[in-house]
């Protein structure tokens, strides 16, 4: 029976959907025990959801490939579930697993959106959204699969004889670990922004993927302030010692690195490690340790006044319980700092070259991106970061000193402006997608090349692509590209950022890439070059971030850089060969594409490489 409604109820005010949707997750890895306070409430952007849950960018599909069966999909819009702010966390209900996977994946995406100043899209030729399979297979592994465009989470039985904190033989679900979900989601996001980072062209590339994913997982975890509050009070160790935060991370089940990264954060940083460690995860954890180091220094600075106030200047905290106000404030500082660092780390992504990334490149990207937003480094984040990298022996190529000015990416010489007035449609699309209340998800198209086809172009309008192509070819020299080879436009999008002082920054980021063929000593991968351009809203090019090929015409110093890259890629192939036990078993055909075979995350996460 249609009931009568007041006119006002049809107004925008009454019809508006809530901005946020509350959901619940396990805060610490249930694999590591069932402590009270393990369940926390989080919130994600409210969007239309169908059973799964399936939103505009993520679809959770509960298909179990080992059992060959589907588990029932959850409808998060069910009133009973909405009323309680999400299903109660439990291991035995697959619908909660779906909820948790969605919640943590969306939280991770939101961090990216906010920090990047644009919405990451996963739509491609073959897929509408990123798929998440919370119970994909029976196995002690979880990974992002670029071919399937999906996150696959395994489950397995705890050891009968050595179950740890679980019941013997109990099923352990990797999809119930916040850190693992965030880590895998980050792989997917990185792959979307820089698909060519999947090709291990030097010893840092895969390590960067791993380290960066660990960083996002770790700092996202630290930004859950309710959790921090409880833990700070519970652990009761000196709050100005790094051990407390490390303990937190371990307790959180910092699963993917097994706490290894933070162990190295506590050790005296060894500048020799970066030049000697070769294993991917270990190398990645050097990066994590460096960022954690910077985070901790900033956190210490921020709580100094709180400690002074709480102890009357003596710095001696009581041995027993801490004052709850102090705990709350310290927790807030830790969470806020974690969010700042996270934003800084993600923001730096836009300032990376399209190919062949190294840790040194990332340092320059961190410094440049932060400099653009916060020129004065009021929080001291940049200085702390530079110092942390320096202590671990991470030095960028071709840089004369570690002073901030030297670390910034090169500004271009004489370069005409990018003709942005021909690209209004692109800008408007960016504005629409970033602004609240205007999103129409079905209209959004991704602005980068679909990573599935490695040589594909960005999915941008023909007009935009033509304009950019022309610009790149006409200015190939200044962009360090080879005009004699095909230049692919890999991406072009606007980004919108708000500085701490409230100022709005609008930038455009363009990526160009090219390649040349190689011989067998490269194991099936080409030698790639490329350039990222950071362009101001008026078309003026602010930064040129280039990895040139070794083909002319370029200056001597750039040629030297290119040749070093080439050599480094060859050496990395040789290193992989020397350590690879499978090589003796492969015939000539398999050998020709051996580097491609080493590209997948499944093997990397299984501990194979």
């Amino acid at each position, binding site marked *: 029976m249609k009931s009568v409604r007041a006119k006002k109820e049809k107004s925008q005010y009454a019809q508006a959907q809530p901005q946020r949707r509350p959901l619940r997750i396990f805060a610490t890895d249930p694999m590591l025990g069932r402590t009270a306070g393990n369940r926390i409430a989080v919130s994600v952007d409210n969007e239309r959801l*169908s*059973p*799964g849950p*399936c939103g505009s960018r993520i*679809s959770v*599909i509960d*298909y*179990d*490939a*080992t*059992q*060959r*069966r*589907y*588990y*029932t*999909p959850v409808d998060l819009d069910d009133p009973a579930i909405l009323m309680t702010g999400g299903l109660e966390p439990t291991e*035995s*209900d*697959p619908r909660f697993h779906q909820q948790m996977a969605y919640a943590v994946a969306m939280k991770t995406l939101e961090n990216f959106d906010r920090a990047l100043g644009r919405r990451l899209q996963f739509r491609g030729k073959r897929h509408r959204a990123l798929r998440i*399979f919370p*119970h*994909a*297979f*029976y*196995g*002690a*592994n979880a*990974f992002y*699969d670029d071919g*399937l465009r999906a996150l*696959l989470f*395994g*489950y*397995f*039985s705890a*050891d009968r*004889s050595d179950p740890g904190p679980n019941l013997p033989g109990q*099923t352990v*679900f990797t999809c119930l670990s916040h850190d693992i979900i965030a880590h895998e989601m980050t792989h997917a996001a990185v792959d979307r922004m820089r698909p060519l980072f999947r090709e291990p062209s030097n010893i840092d590339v895969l390590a960067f993927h791993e380290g960066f994913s660990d960083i996002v997982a770790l700092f996202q975890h630290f930004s859950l302030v309710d959790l921090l509050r409880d833990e700070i009070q519970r652990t009761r160790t000196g709050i100005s010692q790094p051990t407390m935060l490390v303990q937190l991370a371990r307790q959180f089940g910092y699963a993917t690195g097994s706490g290894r990264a933070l162990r190295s954060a506590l050790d005296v940083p060894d500048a020799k490690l970066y030049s000697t460690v070769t294993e991917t995860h270990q190398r990645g954890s050097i990066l994590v340790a460096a960022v954690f180091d910077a985070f901790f220094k900033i956190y210490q600075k921020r709580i100094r006044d709180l400690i002074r106030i709480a102890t009357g200047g003596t710095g001696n905290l009581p041995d027993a319980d801490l004052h709850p106000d102090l705990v709350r404030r310290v927790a807030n500082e830790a969470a806020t700092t974690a969010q700042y660092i996270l934003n800084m780390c993600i923001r730096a992504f836009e300032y990376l070259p399209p190919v062949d990334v190294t840790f040194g490149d990332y340092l320059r990207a961190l410094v440049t991106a932060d400099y653009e937003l916060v020129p004065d480094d009021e929080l001291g984040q940049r200085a702390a970061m530079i110092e942390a990298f320096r202590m671990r022996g991470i030095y960028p190529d071709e840089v004369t000193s570690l002073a901030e000015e030297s670390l910034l990416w090169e500004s271009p010489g004489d370069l005409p402006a990018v003709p942005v007035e021909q690209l209004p449609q692109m800008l408007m699309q960016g504005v629409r997608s970033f602004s609240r209340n205007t999103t129409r998800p079905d209209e959004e198209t991704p602005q980068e090349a679909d990573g599935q086809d490695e040589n594909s172009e960005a999915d941008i309008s023909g007009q935009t692509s033509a304009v950019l192509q022309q610009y790149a070819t006409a200015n190939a020299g200044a962009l360090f590209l080879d005009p004699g080879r095909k230049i692919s436009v890999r991406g072009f999008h606007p980004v919108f950022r708000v500085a701490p002082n409230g100022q709005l920054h609008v930038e455009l980021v363009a990526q160009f890439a090219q390649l040349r063929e190689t011989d067998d000593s490269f194991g099936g991968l080409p030698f790639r070059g490329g350039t990222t351009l950071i362009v101001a809203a008026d078309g003026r090019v602010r930064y040129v971030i280039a990895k040139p090929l070794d083909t002319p015409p370029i200056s001597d110093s750039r040629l030297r850089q290119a040749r070093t890259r080439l050599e480094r890629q060859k050496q990395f192939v040789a290193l992989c*060969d*020397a*350590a*690879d*036990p*499978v*090589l*003796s*078993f*492969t*015939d*000539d055909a*398999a*050998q020709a594409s051996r580097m491609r*075979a080493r590209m997948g995350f*499944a*093997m990397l996460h*299984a*501990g*194979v490489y």
Partner: protein
Amino acid sequence: MCAATKKKKKTTTTKAVTITMYDVGFGDCFLVRFPAPAGEKRILFDCGSIKAGTATIDDVVSSVISDVTDADGNAKIDVVVATHRHKDHVSGFDNEAWAAVEVGEVWMPWTEHPTDPKARNIRDRMNSLALHLQTLAGTGGVQGPLTPAAISEIALNALSNEAAMRTLHRGFAGNPRRRFLAANNKGESMATITSDVLPSVTINVLGPSRDEEVIKDMDPPVGQSYLRLVDDTTGNMRATLPPFDNDWTIDSGEYAISFPEIVVNDADAAAIRRSAEGLEGIVAAAIDKAVNGTSLMIVLHIGKLSLLFPGDAQWGTWNAALENPDARDVLSEATFCKLGHHGSHNASPVDFVEHVLQKSAWVMVSTRHVDQWPNIPRTPLMTALAAKTDKLARSDKPQTVPVKWFKSAKGRTTAEIPLT
């Protein structure tokens, strides 16, 4: 030092070290002999095979014992070295004839120590994995880069040959002293030892290391995580029970009707299964590498000569040795080198062959083609060696062995390297 002297056919008065490579097919068996005041000294490096050459392994054992028998009819070997426990290096010791051979010392890697807890851990894990892989390969339930037959072969190679190991640990006549060697027992970078039965001989031990980093190769993480999927009581894969009550399941047909947007097509389903399985091949390769990684890497200094026997040591051990200046020096002075792992890529680093190995060094390779290792011996490696030295002998191609430097007879190739 390596002057090209023509050897006389009769017994020569020039003192020389004789190194005999027995043709065991795919395996190693090397006998080193040199004159000493108290009589000829003999060191045997390995005796095993997984694919016979021109003679069976038992025939080879007879040849070896005959070669070490003195005029008075007593068979004596001063040191028996078992570089690692792979069948192709120890299977020959499963033979009753050894009970009559008097041995002075038996050298094995520290990972063979019967009571050292770390050693036991490593051995136990290797055995579990090998046993399990063998069971699995037998049922044909494997995918990946290696065929079930190959996996089975690898597993068999790794499974401890109990009788042979018994001989090494407790057999032989003369109550030999057993020594379990490591590269760095007391924190030094390279071990230097001597032996009562080999006076005036210095021995460097360059592997296996006790370093955690290098040990990881011997106990690979992929093996550990793989074992989580194995039922320790039966050795089979754990029964994969559904993780949830059946009542949570939806029939595929009904699901396709109710939720058409989120159906998984067959290709994707198969792809998911594939990505999760097929680890067996990788694990098998990892175990193979792990056991090889336990290899003793020994340099014998006899007079002015230095003889390098690296067993099947892999990249982990080699890398540690090449990075260590003292060890690198020792390697660069080697007069003779037995090529590691039958000429595989991982056992002879490019750095060693190109920059460290002496030009015109003596090199011997005991190898033979086997199906599961299409890349052994590795052709580019053999080519590079041939370019570096003409004193190269390979047992799989006896016709290419230069008569100028080596004496070839049925079932054996011998090098006589002058001591002066």
